């Protein structure tokens, strides 16, 4: 079920009514039923996969709890990892692996036994990467002793089927979510106000900004060969903002819905466009994934404690892995690897800060004489540069679908786009690109993007809903009405799914 659908508009109040009506001991049942209904609505088959993941990790957790030695626990952890990563690999990466093996073998003229195409029409369960990572974090935490194994299957099933976060994050941890699920939750007016406002803010980002910018982003990628210079740059920025609003919009709705239910979910975004450097960016963008990768991969590899060369490798490796998590295609992996390379360069440059406390002279000067906003702009453009690749695979699919007689390689699209990006003495097709939807639509897009960033600048790191709710009645209601009017009047409602659903 999509958050931005009429179905959800009916589902949510009905769910809340049932959830708050039943006694405490039955609330988990409503959570599980709601979760399976929500997820099974995409396809009943997805619900079966969810059930398999739940059984596998519940069993692994419980068995680890019984084992006394770490060695024996490791076997059960392996079972959990094999189950989760096996599902993830089968549905998401098998086709990618198959294609790469085929191409590799073709170089040596060795035939590959799998007929082509074989796996490419397998349906990837919505949000399977989120589901598996959330569930996997539980078994790793049980293994590490961070979390106690859950003994009640129902509570554990409510954790894996916690519908606000299950398909698009934030990737929650059992130690945060499970204790809250077990508590009694009753309807609370103030909490409901906070939650609903946060949800509305999420809908605003998604329906008013992200889906509007999608017009321009689609055109940028579909006409990658003729658009160049400033048009590519602004288009790339639009894409960056689109992904941010789409994904953080979903997280806001998830956080808000959970809040209404009385459960606090971790923040997933903290004004990433105000990040002062690449490392800072990752503490603000998709926080639940970056902390997941930091906790379970980066620290496992030795984090910053390793030698300089190893740290650089670790940074690039984790970012490449992050890219692979985002999409089973090379442009995506390359996109994040490039971010990793930039982060490694920064680390190398700033190494003294971390390792010997004394920063290098050039870094000190850079840090001292560049204002915060300049740092933010540089960070944004470095990410924009890397994230141009983010969408290349999807664009390639769309272009090849529209013109099967003249297929293009992703590398051609990427090379052309980067080539065009650097021709900053031009702004080819800017008018056509901008006016494709008319001046008014463009003006509306710019206006609401400005509203978003001004709001983020004003609210700072505080939660927007807390600030709004603390205002006096007139101010509060003015904001309610303006937000609602913006969503209802200016939103785009054609059931567009969320960009991150494919991950």
């Amino acid at each position, binding site marked *: 079920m999509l958050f931005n659908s009429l179905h959800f508009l009916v589902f949510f109040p009905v769910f809340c009514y049932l959830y708050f009506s039943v006694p405490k001991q039955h609330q988990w049942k409503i959570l599980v039923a709601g979760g399976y209904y929500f997820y099974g609505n995409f396809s009943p088959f997805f619900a079966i996969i969810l059930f398999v993941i739940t059984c596998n990790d519940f069993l692994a957790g419980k068995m680890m709890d019984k084992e006394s030695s770490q060695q024996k626990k490791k076997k059960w952890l392996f079972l959990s990892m094999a189950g989760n990563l096996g599902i993830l690999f089968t549905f998401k990466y098998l086709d990618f692996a198959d294609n790469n093996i085929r191409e590799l073998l073709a170089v040596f003229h060795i035939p590959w036994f799998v007929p082509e195409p074989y796996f490419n029409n397998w349906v990837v369960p919505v949000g399977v990467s989120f589901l598996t990572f959330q569930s996997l974090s539980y078994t790793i935490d049980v293994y590490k002793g961070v979390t106690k194994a859950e003994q009640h299957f129902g509570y554990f099933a409510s954790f894996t089927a916690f519908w606000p976060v299950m398909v698009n994050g934030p990737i929650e941890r059992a130690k945060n979510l499970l204790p809250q699920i077990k508590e009694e939750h009753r309807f609370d007016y103030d909490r409901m106000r906070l939650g609903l406002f946060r949800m509305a803010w999420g809908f605003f980002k998604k329906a008013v900004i992200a889906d509007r910018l999608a017009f321009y982003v689609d055109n940028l990628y579909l006409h990658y060969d003729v658009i160049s210079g400033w048009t590519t740059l602004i288009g790339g920025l639009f894409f960056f903002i689109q992904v941010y609003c789409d994904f953080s919009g979903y997280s806001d709705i998830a956080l808000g819905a959970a809040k209404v239910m009385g459960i606090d979910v971790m923040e997933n975004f903290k004004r990433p466009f105000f990040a002062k450097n690449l490392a800072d960016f990752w503490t603000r963008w998709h926080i639940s994934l970056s902390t997941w990768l930091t906790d379970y991969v980066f620290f496992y590899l030795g984090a910053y404690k390793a030698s300089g060369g190893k740290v650089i490798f670790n940074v690039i490796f984790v970012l490449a892995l992050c890219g692979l998590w985002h999409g089973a295609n090379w442009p995506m992996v390359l996109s994040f690897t490039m971010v990793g390379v930039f982060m490694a360069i920064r680390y190398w440059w700033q190494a003294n800060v971390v390792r010997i406390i004394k920063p290098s002279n050039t870094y000190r000067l850079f840090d001292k004489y560049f204002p915060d906003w300049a740092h933010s702009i540089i960070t944004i453009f470095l990410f924009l540069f890397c994230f141009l690749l983010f969408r290349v695979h999807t664009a390639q699919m769309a272009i090849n679908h529209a013109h099967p007689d003249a297929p293009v390689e992703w590398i051609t699209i990427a090379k052309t786009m980067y080539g065009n990006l650097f021709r900053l003495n031009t702004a080819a097709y800017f008018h056509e690109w901008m006016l494709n939807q008319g001046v008014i639509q463009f003006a509306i897009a710019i206006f609401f993007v400005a509203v978003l960033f001004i709001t983020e600048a004003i609210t700072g790191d505080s939660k927007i809903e807390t600030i709004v709710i603390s205002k006096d009645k007139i101010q509060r209601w003015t904001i309610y*009405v303006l937000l609602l009017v913006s969503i209802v009047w200016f939103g785009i409602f054609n059931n567009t799914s969320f960009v991150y659903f494919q991950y």
Partner: protein
Amino acid sequence: MLKKTVRNIILITILLLVLSSVVRFFMPFYWGDSVQTVKYEYYKKHAEQYNAVYLGGSLEYRHIDPTIIDSVAQKNGIDLRSFNLGVDGHGIVQEMSDLDGLLSIRNPNLKYIFLSISSEAYFFQSNLHTPKWISWHSANSTYRAWSIIPTLDNPVIFRSKYMYFFGMSWMENLFNIGTVPDMLKYRFDKTYLDSSYIGKDRNGFYPYDYEENHLFMEYKWEDTLLLQSRKRFESGDPYSDTLNKEVLTSFTNFKGTEKPNAPMVKICLDAYNKCKKRGIQVFFILPPKARTNYSLLLPVFNAMPEGSKIELGDIRKYPKFYSIEYGYNFHHLNYKGAKLFSHEMAKQLVPLMKAQRDSL
């Protein structure tokens, strides 16, 4: 607390409803469709030049050439100055909304309105959630659609879906859901309007032959669709024979005693009487190549008042309309077909008008 929540939700909904109504109040009824806007704005400016108007969907817009009909009528001593206000995709429900809108445009000279009986409450799914579709929905149109849909022969699941879509579209209209950017576009940036849709003779007629490579951005998908459908049709696709057989069966089996679809008859007669009260004569046209089965349309058409019916759908009487030579695609005539259609329509219309004049 729950009461307070419900109260606040109701309050904010009412507020939104009021604000939306205020915004919509400043919009003309035709603003959501660019072709309709072009045609109605032209008509509005020159309304008093015309004493007759054709309403309906593409079967009227693309087929009725007012110049031909006017000249035939004038040769027979009848003063007819007509304008084609048909717009693609307008079924019977939207046609009635168009009629309501048309009557609100001041034109003391308006004497004749032509309505088409060519569809039930149908819609193109791709139009849902677009201003073209949302903009015209009202309590009246929803009532009309909801009265027709349950009586149709489609399976219950489809009928329920249609009811839902019409109801939903009305809600979208009430709250201006996602439509305000297009309203602003209409108010402040009319560059998207293409006046060529008024037609070469400035009479609202624009056959499909002119349409290729001349479509709006919003209809871009139709560009290929039109071309494809024309090629399929011209290649002698057997689907054409299937459709023709269906039409033939409907006309052959029609005895004239069949019970018509009551809500459709009521809607048409209401329109007839409403116009009559204003001194306007309504003529009902049964066009050829309708998408809706003639076994549904024929009894409704048959139930219309005598002297107001122009029947042009019968494949036995008008086989040319169903031939490849005169067709554009499965459901439309080409320019040649449109000219023939207009002549045939004029032939039937003149005696009706003469009889009406003589009776006065």
